[in-house]
């Protein structure tokens, strides 16, 4: 079979070569001077015009008919702003693009070679050049300043009341840490990371970490400001929440952050898209190795009350990994037991420590 295909391909090539040979011999026989303009010159002018028309028709047709397919519904406050900027820029650039595109290919068609005609000697026109320097400059200035305002708002510091959530990237999964009831994330350091359970590198001498809890899904409250604190354990990753228009790299050694307000709960988005299985997702957008394409994390947006309830129901990390109690300085163990929600009394410590650690 593959032998036949090879033979067929070779034969086709041979035939093509023969056609080419004959055609070039014919043109030699005709004695056409290479300096002369080809008699088929006009064909290209028509083809360019055709390209322009079909290109524009195709562009507008696809952009219109498939609009819902290539636009993601937006679910954050600043996302509405950046989307608006996106579409304003789109309107401006498409207008400029269409005009230049049409004018250029029209010129290509109109001023194709005609025997005996002489081209215009038109080396410059300062007025014209000034105009098309200044107009784009003004248009761009407007775009820049609207963009700057949006950018400054997006990157301004988060408020004190913001819900702080930590996102940690590693090859090839995300994890999330919530600050627990005290609303403050405990310290963490990559040197405390181990292979037994402390995969976030929690600092067990910091009492604020005792009530922190870890999840493998990102839960967000609707309508409340969220401050994502982002870090990475191994290589650079990038947090990408497409529906919230959020993107920020996770860099080892340099914590980053992004604040935003989600505006639609998962349930509302299911209704809006008419897709009962809809889920928000988080992806990685910085090449990070073999599994880069599979770094998915499920994102759930709750109504605020629902979120608080969910949050209060989560088990602390320490409760899930009681063995680490032993590593907590003795004077803090009592606090740890209470904050982690394991015990209300002192009696259990010794048994837990004895039985929990390897």
């Amino acid at each position, binding site marked *: 079979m593959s032998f036949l295909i090879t033979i067929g391909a070779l034969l086709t090539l041979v035939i093509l070569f023969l056609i080419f040979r004959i055609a070039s011999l014919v043109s030699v026989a005709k004695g056409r001077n290479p300096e002369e303009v080809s008699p088929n010159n006009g064909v290209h002018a028509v083809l360019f015009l055709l390209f322009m028309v079909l290109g524009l028709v195709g562009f507008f047709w696809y952009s219109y008919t498939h609009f819902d397919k290539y636009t993601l519904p937006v679910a954050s406050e600043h996302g509405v702003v950046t989307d608006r900027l996106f579409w304003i820029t789109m309107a401006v*650039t498409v207008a400029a693009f269409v005009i230049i595109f049409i*004018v*250029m290919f029209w010129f290509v068609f109109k001023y194709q070679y005609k025997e005996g005609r002489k081209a215009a000697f038109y080396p410059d026109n300062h007025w014209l050049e000034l105009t098309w320097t200044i107009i784009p400059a003004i248009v761009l200035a407007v775009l820049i300043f609207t963009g700057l305002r949006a950018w400054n708002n997006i990157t301004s510091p988060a408020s004190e009341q913001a819900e702080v959530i930590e996102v940690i990237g590693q090859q090839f999964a995300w994890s999330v840490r919530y600050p627990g009831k005290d609303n403050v994330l405990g310290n963490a350091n*990559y040197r405390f990371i181990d292979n037994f359970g402390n995969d976030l590198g929690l600092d067990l001498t910091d009492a604020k970490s005792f009530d922190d809890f870890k999840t493998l899904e990102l839960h967000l409250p609707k309508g409340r400001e969220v401050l994502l604190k982002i870090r990475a354990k191994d290589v650079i990753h990038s947090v990408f929440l497409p529906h919230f228009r959020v993107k920020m790299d996770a860099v080892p050694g340099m914590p980053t952050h992004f604040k935003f307000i989600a505006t639609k709960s998962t349930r509302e988005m299911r209704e809006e898209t008419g897709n009962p299985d809809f889920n928000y997702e988080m992806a990685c957008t910085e090449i990070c190795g073999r599994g880069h394409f599979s770094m998915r994390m499920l994102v759930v947006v709750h109504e605020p009350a629902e979120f608080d309830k969910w949050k209060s129901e989560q088990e602390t990390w320490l409760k899930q990994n009681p063995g680490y109690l032993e590593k907590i300085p003795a004077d803090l163990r009592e606090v740890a037991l209470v904050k982690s929600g394991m015990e209300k009394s002192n009696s259990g410590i010794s048994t837990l420590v004895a039985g929990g650690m390897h």
Partner: protein
Amino acid sequence: MATTHISTQTDLHADSHGHEHEHHEGNFWTNYIFSQDHKVIAKQFLLTGMFWAVIGGILSVIFRLQLGFPNMNLEWLKPVLGGWITPEGKLDPEFYLALVTMHGTIMVFFVLTAGLSGTFSNFLIPLQIGARDMASGFMNMLSYWFFFLSSVVMFISLFISTGPAAGGWVIYPPLSALPQAIQGSGLGMTLWLVSMALFIVSTLLGGINYITTIINMRTRGMSFSRLPLTVWAFFFTAIIGLLSFPVLFAAALLLIFDRSFGTSFYLSDIYIGGEALPNTGGSAILFQHLFWFLGHPEVYIVLLPGLGITSEIIATNSRKPIFGYKAMVGSMLFIAILSFVVWAHHMFVTGMNPFLGTIFMLLTLIIAVPSAVKIFNYVTTLWKGNIRFTPAMLFSIGLVSLFLTGGITGIFLGNAAIDIQLHDTYFVVAHFHLVMGAASFFGMLAGVYHWFPKMFGRMMDDKLGYIHFWLTFIGVNLVFFPMHYIGIAGFPRRYYAFTNFETFSGFSDLNALVSVAAIVTMAAQFIFVFNFFYSMFRGRLAPANPWRSTTLEWTTPRFPKHGNWPGEIPAVYRWPYDYSKPGAKEDYIPQTVPFSETPESNLPHENDLIKLEGNGNAPIVVEGKH
């Protein structure tokens, strides 16, 4: 006056040098391999560039098969790719990343920097400014052979068992620094760094030569304001390269230290492979700053030669002077300067201080203005022209079209607020492939079609050229335009497959279309390769000035020897764009024709220049004496 004096001296020197070569012809090795003739070196760059273009293109076709047809059984690639095809007949995900990495590296550096700038700077600078050769033929030869060595090292890295570098062509550490993170960061990355170090040496040797030659070795009368725009473009390109490549060298050197000698320039707080690394205090972002300090100017290193070539070809084939010569030079100068202060627009979402983002957004959008001016000037050059569609002209018009389509999306990406969503999606892929990848590649092809008669003394077949152009032009648009939609939908780049996300589950139709278009476009390039080699030996002999062009290279013999002009170097009396001048007999007046011979077409201020032409005779006498 001093300048004239120096150039006379060098001319004399180069002159005798040239004659030496004409008398004893030299052997195969000195003529074709270790030649110091800029024309031969240019052809060496071109052939090596074409070789790399084919490799880079094939790599892209392989990963497009994966993206367009994710369920396809690739078992048949096993004889070539061996272990990189999994037992299930799929492409290995890590090798996929190696493919995109090598595709990027090869295309940006080996094809569009060395293959484009190396070829045409070498070939055209001496021919168009009227010089016997480069300022230093030996350094020029070294430049090629460093590039050759660099190519050999990079080529070898494709075949090692752990695979070539796979961390993206931007090789961000820590991924590129840690072999634990990805196999390609082992020996593959070492070879990548060695190869790039050699490559940078090659670029610097070439660049110094181009700059020196343009400043010092212009023929009599060839003032800067009479330089063809090609030479201006090569001049700016070389300056940009000279200033930016050393920074990449520094970045690579520090990365080598981090990889091999335990330093922590880029590494900090890393826990990988079950252990915490001792490195602290480094900054991964530092590398990105250093990389993009080259990386962004690199975009213009790639693009400016294409724009210069296009300016020349569009003017010649519209039979019109390029519109706004000074504005064209000015916009290139402006772009060259601005290219150094926009780099961090690649880094809006890396976590750098948002205030920096503000500054870089401002500067980035400013650079759109000179780019827009260039497009307007091209379009106006076409206006009221008398356009001949040679294959070179087709590719030049194609370049302007692609530059427009791809350039305009830069306004989105340069806006930090909009970039948050679009960063590292297919929108970016579409943008830079159109504006710098395809556009520059079109510039390169246009240049080959246009100057082939000068390079090999024969004509390329124009019918094959037409077929090649239309397949490529439509193909390239079909490959990259649909990617805008995929990008707006949020699809991230460098994804092996889109099966894991509901958000990114659509567009299998567009992805298949893109892949088919990519394969057809790639196949069409073999028409060009055939045409190139066939015409080199069997093409019709070229007339002295096949495009009826004004520039100096067409005053050389059909097969110019080392030294370019058999007699003395012609003097230049006018700018290179006297096409369709009112009153002139022909529709072009070569640069070598003095105003005193064209009283019928001179503009008032040009008549004043006739007196000066007489004064210039003194150096001619000196030159004639040798």
